[in-house]
């Protein structure tokens, strides 16, 4: 009975589900529809919750065209149900041993001795790669995630996609074939769509192939010449073609060529110029401050006697004029450094006579009147 059930699993489950829909579901039928671990062997205490054995692999690699096996091991399953879900499109694949998806390549198997729930994917395709979830129908749900990788036999030439060799040296190409269930029957090398082998007209060609889990083939071409440049391809009997492009270079010609040196661009002395301007401004301010300090005693002297109130406006006007001159000299300095120096000197010379005349005027009454006029 068990053997027949196993052989006709999908069809049997299919019919059972139909029967279930037409009639009222009973616990007996439910148990038959979704078989679980037999309770006759041992009785689980009710407080024991289902859990996953973490030793099963979480990363599975399958060969395209072959069957992939994803497994999860559940302890203390009791009356719960194990489901497999594909995460790519959140598609329910199997519930218990019943295959829900119409893609019959998926099948769930329960091994009672190891408590394994294995999802078999027949004829694995590239699109089957991704994350799969083994789920226990607890509340809340418990999940075990397995990632499936689907690989194809692949040929690879080391050093690609471009290789550079010197003229006169030996071209050494290495082609490796991975993920192959068995070594390839043969590996052909091509140069520009023509098979290249030890018996080629060029001569100096060797092909060495080592077969194993990873099959490796070496192509050696001695005394490389410019004509040997171009596309080289490795074509195993059980994998896609891999290609590289070889460039044969004449190194001596390159070395003898002349290369003009880059012209150096000198840096400008902006900082120096700005520093000079700042120093000149400082000097101008010092001179102006000295003028102000010398002017103060004059104003004090004039303010002491009462009759000297009349010359006060004249002193104020002189101060204003001096300030104006300072401002103009500063602006000239900002414009031109050298011109500013000359202008500053001229301004300084002009100010001295003005100060002297003020002092002389303060000394004499007659001179005061002339200043007033």
């Amino acid at each position, binding site marked *: 009975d068990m053997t027949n059930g196993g052989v006709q699993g999908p069809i049997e489950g299919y019919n059972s589900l139909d029967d279930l829909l037409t009639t009222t579901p009973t616990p007996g039928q439910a148990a038959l529809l979704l078989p679980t671990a037999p309770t006759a062997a041992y009785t689980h205490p009710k407080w024991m919750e289902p859990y996953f054995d973490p030793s099963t692999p979480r990363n599975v690699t399958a060969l395209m065209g072959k069957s992939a096996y994803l497994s999860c091991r559940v302890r203390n399953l009791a009356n719960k149900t194990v489901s497999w879900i594909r995460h790519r499109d959140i598609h*329910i694949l199997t519930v218990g041993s019943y295959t829900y*998806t*119409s893609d019959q390549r998926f099948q769930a198997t329960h091994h009672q001795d190891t408590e394994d729930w294995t999802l078999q994917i027949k004829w694995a395709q590239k699109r089957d790669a991704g994350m799969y979830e083994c789920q226990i129908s607890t509340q809340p749900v418990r999940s075990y995630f397995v990632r499936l990788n689907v690989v194809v036999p692949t040929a690879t030439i080391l050093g690609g996609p471009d290789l550079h060799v010197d003229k006169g040296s030996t071209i050494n190409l290495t082609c490796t074939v991975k993920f192959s269930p068995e070594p390839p029957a043969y590996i052909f090398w091509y140069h520009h769509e023509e098979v290249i082998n030890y018996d080629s007209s060029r001569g100096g060609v060797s092909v060495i192939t080592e077969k194993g889990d990873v099959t490796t083939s070496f192509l050696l071409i001695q005394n490389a010449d410019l004509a040997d440049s171009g596309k080289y391809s490795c074509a195993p009997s059980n994998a896609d073609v891999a290609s590289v492009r070889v460039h044969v270079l004449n190194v001596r010609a390159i070395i003898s060529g002349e290369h003009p040196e880059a012209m150096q661009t000198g840096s400008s002395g902006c900082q120096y110029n700005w520093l000079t301007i700042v120093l000149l401004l400082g000097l101008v301010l010092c001179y102006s401050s000295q003028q102000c300090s010398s002017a103060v005693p004059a104003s004090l002297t004039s303010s002491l006697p009462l009759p000297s109130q009349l010359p006060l406006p004249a002193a104020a006007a002189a101060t204003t004029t001096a300030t104006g001159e300072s401002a103009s000299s500063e602006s000239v300095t900002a414009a031109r450094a050298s011109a500013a120096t000359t202008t500053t000197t001229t301004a300084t010379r002009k100010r001295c006579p003005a100060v002297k005349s003020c002092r002389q005027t303060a000394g004499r009454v007659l001179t005061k009147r002339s200043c007033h006029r």
Partner: protein
Amino acid sequence: GSTQNQHHESSSQLDPDPEFIGFINNVTYPAGREAILACSVRNLGKNKVGWLRASDQTVLALQGRVVTHNARISVMHQDMHTWKLKISKLRESDRGCYMCQINTSPMKKQVGCIDVQVPPDIINEESSADLAVQEGEDATLTCKATGNPQPRVTWRREDGEMILIRKPGSRELMKVESYNGSSLRLLRLERRQMGAYLCIASNDVPPAVSKRVSLSVQFAPMVRAPSQLLGTPLGSDVQLECQVEASPSPVSYWLKGARTSNGFASVSTASLESGSPGPEMLLDGPKYGITERRDGYRGVMLLVVRSFSPSDVGTYHCVSTNSLGRAEGTLRLYEIKLHPGASASNDDHLNYIGGLEEAARNAGRSNRTTWQPLLAMLMLLWMRLSLRTGGA
């Protein structure tokens, strides 16, 4: 076997592909209610319908059989056309999207979502408890609430009065019936803002909830005597009144007697020991009736002097004190002669005039102003500015 296979192939070729009719309607229900998602299918044939939860890919049901061990989930169908997923006693955790899928190749699916409404609830740990703040400081009443949809928080005063809110950077107090927001910011508190505030959280899912936050604005007592000079005929009863504002509630009492040398009317042992009679604390009894009424931070102190006699003439002090300070009001009581024809003794006349003088002196002191120092400072600044101008 071969016959069955041929039959299966021929039937699959004849049957059209299953397809969905319409869409799964998104639903919104309060927590505790029952939610139903309906998935309509045409030409199901031999294919099967499955339900799962989209967020965590939980397998819920296949056709008419529930897979998950969640007692609140059930499925039903009507003539293989409409497949309904029912979730009873909704919880907030049930919120999310659910997928109905048909096991065609490629698989077809529809998604419908359930939103679970949750009544508002106030988070006590993140909300303000009762506050006691000194007048002039700032206070922020906070009220955080949860629920779905997110509740609105509204503040009101428990007594129905208007909420006084000050705009930042302004001295003006705005009156608002209610304030919307989880944080009620009260700047430079005034005593008028003291009271119980209600935080009301509502989101149109009954019931709304509220929380009471008591705000106590604390300040030193203030005492005011409306009538500082009272006259009454002998033998009659006279009532003295003082108005008090204080928070926290003050301790209030009446003193009778003149001020001591330190300027405060107080009962002290030193005063008693020295022999000079200090102010006397008045007690409720046959001679004096002492009552106090309080309403919030306002209160009234009443002292009734019964059967007025010449010995009752003098100065009375109403004193109010709390943890933040002390305040005092002074009242003067004098005798009114009812018989103008009777001969007035010089002593009585002098007493009368003395009382008036003392009252006037007190009034003068209370009206003292502090504008003179400010004026002096202004004059000094002006002189300094003038000197600088002259110097320049």
